[in-house]
């Protein structure tokens, strides 16, 4: 039960949300350069959302009954809340991306005319609210169980949120660097991505401390390598160092270093979801950890 589709969906959904929020922050507060360089984030968010619903549906025992998730609204169940959030966020992200495409002349004809009607500021605000819910609910969903590795600490939701925002801002940085964005914008994006990575490391430290011995299936078991080397090393520490290294540089050097750092963050985000998800299965077999979770 529960196979690779779940962490893949959490990763893509989180990245889509992070990219949308990053682009919206730049559009709300940044310069014209910032807006131009980050608008591709809306395309990325929409693209990353395309496989999300299929992945979520594929993992169901009865995929033909996916719509039963939407026959009631029950925010008490993170699974129900998540299904509604994805259902709400996907059209908003597509509308915002279409509105940008119409603005640049990429989307013409009647569809373009329709896309021009999208209230962009409202779409940004509503999209950020739903996006942040999508980014955070996945960790809360895993934690709202009796699997010791997921449930012992209270910080898994925060950890997935930080990882989603790091990977989303990294995705925006990556496309900006590839398209030769101005140095000032890249520096700002790097600062934001580094803040997310640093936050992720801090929340992760708290998560591991609160989990204590319960975290062993993750930190020592067969998932130790993907977790420490992939999620922590390549996914958070290395990008922080690379962005720091890129701090004083300009032009092509800055673009290349930013792109590599962002790729690392994105890959690390997948490693984090996958290793915590899979190690949870080992954790469910750990009787002493289960008793620890239920000790009063």
């Amino acid at each position, binding site marked *: *039960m529960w196979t690779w589709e779940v962490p893949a969906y959490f990763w893509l959904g989180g990245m889509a949300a992070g990219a949308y929020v990053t682009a919206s*922050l730049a559009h709300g507060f940044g310069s014209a350069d910032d807006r131009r360089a980050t608008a591709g984030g809306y395309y990325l968010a929409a693209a990353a959302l395309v496989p999300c619903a299929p992945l979520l549906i594929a993992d*169901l025992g009865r*995929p033909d009954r996916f719509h*039963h998730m939407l026959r009631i609204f*029950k925010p008490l169940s993170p699974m129900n809340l998540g299904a509604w959030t994805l259902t709400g966020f996907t059209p908003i992200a597509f509308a915002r991306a279409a509105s940008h495409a119409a603005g640049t002349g990429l989307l013409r004809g009647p569809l373009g005319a329709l896309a021009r009607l999208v209230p962009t500021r409202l779409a940004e605000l509503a999209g950020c609210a739903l996006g942040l819910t999508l980014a955070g609910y996945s960790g*809360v969903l895993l934690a709202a169980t009796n699997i010791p590795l997921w449930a012992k600490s209270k910080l898994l939701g925060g950890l997935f949120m930080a990882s989603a925002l790091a990977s989303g801002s990294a995705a925006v940085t990556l496309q900006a660097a590839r398209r030769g964005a101005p140095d000032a914008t890249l520096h700002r994006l790097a600062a934001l991505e580094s803040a997310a990575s640093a936050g992720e490391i801090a929340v992760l430290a708290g998560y591991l401390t609160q989990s204590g011995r319960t975290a062993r299936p993750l930190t020592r078991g067969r998932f130790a390598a993907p977790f420490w080397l992939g999620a922590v090393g390549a996914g958070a520490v290395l990008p922080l160092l690379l962005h720091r290294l890129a701090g004083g540089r300009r032009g092509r050097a800055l673009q290349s270093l930013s792109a590599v750092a962002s790729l690392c963050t994105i890959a690390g985000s997948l490693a984090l979801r996958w290793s915590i998800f899979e190690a949870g299965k080992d954790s469910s077999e750990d009787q002493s950890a289960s008793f620890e979770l239920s000790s009063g």
Partner: protein
Amino acid sequence: MIDAYKRLMNVESPPPPKRARGFFTDTSLCIGCKACEVACKQWNQLPADGFAMTGNSYDNTGTLGATTWRHVQFIEQAKANSSRQDQRWLMMSDVCKHCANAACLEACPTGALIRTEFDTVYVQQDICNGCGFCVPACPFGVIDRAPKHGQFEAGTAHKCTLCYDRLKDDMTPACAKSCPTASIQFGDVEELQERARHRLAELKARGETKAELYGMPEGKEATEVGPLHAFFLLLDRPHTYNLPDIPRLPRQTMAQRYGWSAAVGVGFALIGALVFRGRR
């Protein structure tokens, strides 16, 4: 307007509530005959699980699962080089606890898991879409999802129904009906609880000092999931029977978990606003 909607959508009102029904499983009477397992499988038409041997115990059923709704645990208590008198064989017919606050029911995103008029917890097979979230939510490891491509009700969640169909016709659930020693007793929960208190006092008076009840309203195990409508008389501490001291209800800590998640999200938004601010 609501009435018109209900007529249009064929919304039926739920049946009127009845007295809460449940099981009192007295493990001091269990002889490990597994009649309950067999009766449950027969009545509910659950397929056999094969003849796999665990190899470390006489317990060859192993766990509760999608097609095993009663599981007679065999717990061999024998130290190495101990005399016959020191050895003990505990047996306990495990089952869904039908918690007053059921974690599976709260986790269910489709409303497939419902509370019946008998105050039991039931999976509506035509609603469940097999998301599987109830499985890790249950603090007892009771509910399970049938294999996606199996023969039996593929892909949906299954567990003891307390023989909902028999209850509707005022019949005793199959396991309790078949139990030859009255280890499994069925009835009104409040009456069963009274009976259990008497039985415990009786056993204590006879020298079973370690005997205890598990799942009563006053027990610490009811802190989060509430009283268990299928509760137990145990001859040893709950851990011996693989039962948690305080079964956790995920809802209890959910707000805190969302709170930390939101704090990280808001922090990021604030930093983002600061980073981009004033560069118009």
